[in-house]
């Protein structure tokens, strides 16, 4: 009975940890996609969206690092810095290219958490 209780507690902890991880990744991914859409829509008017994105990403790094490969987090950080720099120099094409790259990486992270034959096998 004692071992059964231990097994039950372990299972609950695993489920809580997994659901928390998936929820955080999904929320963050949604926010990233929303912000990137804003950048796309306002690329010409240039309203410091990319700069804001960098600060947003810095604030999310620590919590994401608990569940996501740190290299992928660094990749997004690096591309976001490139995007902010392109925004500063009014290089719209480079900025949008970096924005698309961020969406691509974050979608990859999100898809990695989905249960499918592709991710399992």
């Amino acid at each position, binding site marked *: 009975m004692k071992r059964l209780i231990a097994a039950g507690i*372990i299972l609950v902890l*695993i489920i809580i940890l997994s659901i928390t991880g998936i929820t955080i990744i999904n929320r963050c991914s949604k926010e990233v996609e929303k912000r990137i859409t804003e950048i796309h829509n306002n690329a010409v008017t240039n309203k410091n969206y990319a700069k804001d994105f960098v600060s947003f990403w810095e604030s999310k790094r620590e919590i994401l690092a608990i569940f996501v490969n740190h290299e992928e987090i660094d990749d997004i950080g690096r591309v976001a810095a490139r995007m902010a720099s392109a925004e500063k120099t009014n290089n719209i094409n480079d900025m949008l290219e970096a924005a698309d790259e961020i969406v691509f990486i974050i979608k990859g992270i999100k898809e990695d958490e989905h249960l499918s034959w592709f991710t399992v096998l």
Partner: protein
Amino acid sequence: MLKVIVRTVLMYILVTIGVRLMGKRQIGDMQPTELVITLLISEIAAIPLQDTSQPVSIGLIAIFMLVFLEIVASIIVMKNLRLRRIFSGKSVVIIKNGVLDQKAMKSVRMTVFDLIEMLRMQGYFELEEIESAILEINGNLSVKPKSSFAPLTPKDMKIKTEENGLSMTVISDGTIVDAGLKFLNKTRDDLKIMLKKQNLNEKDIFVMTMNESGEGVVVKKEKGV
């Protein structure tokens, strides 16, 4: 570098908790499923230590999922004999009534040299001494010698003996072991009275064992050790 140290400490604690939850078994006594789980846990625990870009939570979830599966498997195996055979296998009789079962040896891929070596490890140097030998699930060989080769016991000699019960350690390196006393239904006060009678102090004792009749062995600490 510091994060490697912290991660190592963290993984050490978590793996120790996981292994303790699985239950007490020595590597040699492990069932096949336990061995698989132990090997997998050691591999998984190494990943976040070697690759610091991997989050510790990935290893944590995998390790505790394995521990969970092992506990559930052990509970199922205890309740269901058929599943026990599937998960753990079954014991194989290698020698029956003094006759070697060559078919059984072939089925477990055991050579004569393996058998002789295992028998030697049990203290039997001749095949003719053995009445039965069973290869257990954990890989150990259980041996029953022929009655003519079995060790002489007080019962054979019709000598009356008394049962003294299990002997427990009650003092280890000057420290009273409460678990041992509790097992023997004794208290610290009982022990101190006993020590006083023998003019001993617990701090001077290296090891003291006691059985249920209150008899035991005392080894005093060596000076300067």
